[in-house]
């Protein structure tokens, strides 16, 4: 039985912090990243990792959201370079 | 009810925060002003905390054991830290006068001050280890800052030794942790007093003594330590020797607190006294052979470490008072001597053969250096006399007249080599060109100010030693125990 839990501030806060850290790292990456490739690979890895204990999600949201933050930071970097 | 906030951790935390900021701003223009403000604010730090035990993170007693990290603060520690901070701020003020002063030097100095204060305050072995390692790295950095090849070499040697001694110290802490199940020093003492000794505890004691020897420069680490004092800039060396002596006092008190009064401590006791005698004698014998003023002072620093260690190792309340008092006096006059060496080497160099005839050029500085020299040789009415008298008295009280005789002989040796250096620097006749050269080189006002403050303190403590002794005595009575041979 998978308990999907509720998406609330309590369960998502950790992932949001991850997004921030990912963003911080993402703005330093200079090459253009293939967003769809990384998202698909990221979702796969997150599913394999599983969620953290006590967080009853089907996959690791902190992993995915950090990746999203990193990709977003990379896009911002590209925009501001020009 | 108004609860007064205990700001004790600020003694450690405030310099650390400022160190990080100084490291970040590195080459900014405001460094000199900020460093001056920092130097002034350091002096009020020791008066922020209130006496007693302080628990970090509110983890106090739980089921009979102290669960977190604890600090113990009392008047004796307060006065040690006050002297430390005072010398730190004077060195900082001297550093402002340097041409290439930058944020990194200030940052390292502050980090060292904070860590040494932490070592003095902490009542927890592992915390002591962590901050002890910071001090080792800081000392390496301060030596490297002078940038010569010899400085790099001695820093490398010091670093290798430091890593080894640090690992051995941690091994000792691991032994004591496994044998007693705690890292808190008071709890550990209770356990050791109520349980039979095991070989693991002997191992732990041995390793603690190794850590002590490295941290303070007792034999067999005396050459490495003397080397780093000699290779650093002289005003930095005054800070380095202050760190070493404060660490000596702190770790020696830890050892006495842990093992004092236990039956198996006697052998280690003898070993500590022997080590300190070796330090005293080696230091002064090596100092007599030197031709470089900085090197001479460095070996004297080692010799003085021997005095402090001897006083503390005697372990009676009087011995501990004498040891701590001598350490405080030592901070003051040895720093004054190193600052004097800084002024002299600004004038020309620190090689004794090249100097001479400085007395008419700067009579005030010569007088102040003479005061410090008389203080280190134990001449009344300077502070060195008071503490050496106490040390000899403590040695006589435990029925060890030999120790007192050695101390007096070493004092005589110190006097001889100091007066030789004074003659060679200030009195020896020199050529006209040299005097012209002296007149063209300028000495920074900042270092003369620092030297003056330290000289005044030397005389003040020589005339009124009670202002320090009264502060130390209660703590010494708590830790020391009375015995005779």
């Amino acid at each position, binding site marked *: 039985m998978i308990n999907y839990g509720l998406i609330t501030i309590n369960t998502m806060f950790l992932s949001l912090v991850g997004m921030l850290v990912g963003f911080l790292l993402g703005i330093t990456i200079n090459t253009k990243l293939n967003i769809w490739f990384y998202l698909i690979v990221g979702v796969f890895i997150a599913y394999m990792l599983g969620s953290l204990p006590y967080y009853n999600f089907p996959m690791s949201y902190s992993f995915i959201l950090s990746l999203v933050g990193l990709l977003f930071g990379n896009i911002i970097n590209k925009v501001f370079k020009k | 009810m108004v609860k007064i906030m205990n700001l004790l951790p600020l003694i450690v935390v405030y310099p650390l925060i400022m160190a990080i900021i100084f490291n970040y701003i590195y080459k900014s223009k405001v460094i000199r002003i900020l460093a001056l403000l920092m130097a002034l604010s350091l002096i009020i730090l020791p008066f922020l905390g209130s006496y007693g035990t302080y628990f970090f993170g509110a983890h106090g007693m739980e089921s009979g054991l102290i669960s977190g990290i604890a600090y113990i603060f009392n008047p004796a520690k307060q006065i040690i830290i006050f002297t430390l901070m005072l010398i730190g701020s004077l060195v900082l003020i001297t550093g402002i006068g340097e041409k290439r002063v930058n944020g990194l030097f200030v940052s390292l100095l502050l980090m060292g001050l904070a860590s040494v204060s932490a070592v003095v305050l902490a009542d927890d072995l592992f915390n002591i280890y962590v901050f002890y390692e910071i001090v080792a790295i800081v000392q390496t950095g301060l030596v490297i800052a002078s940038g010569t090849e010899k400085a*790099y070499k001695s820093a490398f*040697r010091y670093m*290798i*030794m430091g*890593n080894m001694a640090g*690992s051995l110290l941690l*091994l000792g802490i691991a032994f004591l942790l496994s044998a007693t199940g705690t890292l808190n020093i008071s709890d550990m003492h209770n356990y050791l007093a109520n349980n039979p000794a095991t070989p693991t505890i002997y191992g732990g004691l041995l390793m603690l003594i190794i850590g002590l020897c490295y941290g303070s420069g007792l034999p067999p680490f005396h050459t490495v330590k003397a080397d780093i004092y000699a290779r650093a800039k002289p005003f930095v060396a005054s800070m380095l020797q202050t760190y070493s002596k404060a660490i000596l006092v702190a770790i020696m008190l830890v050892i006495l607190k842990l093992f004092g009064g236990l039956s198996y401590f006697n052998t280690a006791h003898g070993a500590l006294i022997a080590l300190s005698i070796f330090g005293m004698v080696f230091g002064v014998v090596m100092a007599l052979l030197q031709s470089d003023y900085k090197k001479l002072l460095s070996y004297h620093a080692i010799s003085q470490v021997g005095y402090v260690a001897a006083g503390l190792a005697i372990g009676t309340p009087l011995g501990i008072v004498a040891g701590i008092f001598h350490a405080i006096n030592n901070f003051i006059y040895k720093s004054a001597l190193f600052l004097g060496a800084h002024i002299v080497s600004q004038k020309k160099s620190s090689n004794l053969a090249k100097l001479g005839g400085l007395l008419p050029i700067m009579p005030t500085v010569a007088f102040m250096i003479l005061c410090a020299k008389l203080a280190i040789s134990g001449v009344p009415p300077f502070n060195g006399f008071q503490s050496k008298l106490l040390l000899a008295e403590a040695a006589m009280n435990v029925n060890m007249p030999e120790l007192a005789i050695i101390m007096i002989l070493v004092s005589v040796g110190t006097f001889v080599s100091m007066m030789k250096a004074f003659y060679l620097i200030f009195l020896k006749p020199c050529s006209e060109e040299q005097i012209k050269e002296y007149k063209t080189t300028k000495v920074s006002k900042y270092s003369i100010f620092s030297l003056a403050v330290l000289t005044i303190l030397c005389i003040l403590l020589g005339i009124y030693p009670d202002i320090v002794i009264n502060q130390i005595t209660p703590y010494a009575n708590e830790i020391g125990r009375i015995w005779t041979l």
Partner: protein
Amino acid sequence: MILYYDINYDIILILYPIIEIAIILLILVMNMDLQLASFITAGILAIVGLYGVFFVDNVLKKIIALSALGNGVNLTLIAIGYKAGGIVPIKMPSMEFTMFATKAVYPLPQALVLTNIVIEASMLAIMLALSIVFYKKYKTLKASIILKED
């Protein structure tokens, strides 16, 4: 204290793997206590490190020896936390607390080791930096040249 010698003694370090193999055999054949075996291994590792620091005439090898010494200390600490049949000190949601508390290994030594690893890494960085500069200067790593006192 002297840190360099003209003769190279590092051949003696070959003894270390032999002793280790002997200890593994003791564990397998004679059912030696695991904790005791780790303690002895740690002690020998520390002694090997000390040996390397004093008797090997190469700065880089000295640094490696220092890490061996540090690892010996770390292993001692880790082994203090050992409990026969213990579990990792991480409480999963499904575990009952009292059962966990009695079975979990001691967390304190592990925390100390984590701290010590970083301390050693930082010391290592400085020593490596210094040896890079000296290698550039002398084109050799011999301790008898680099660490020579003058």
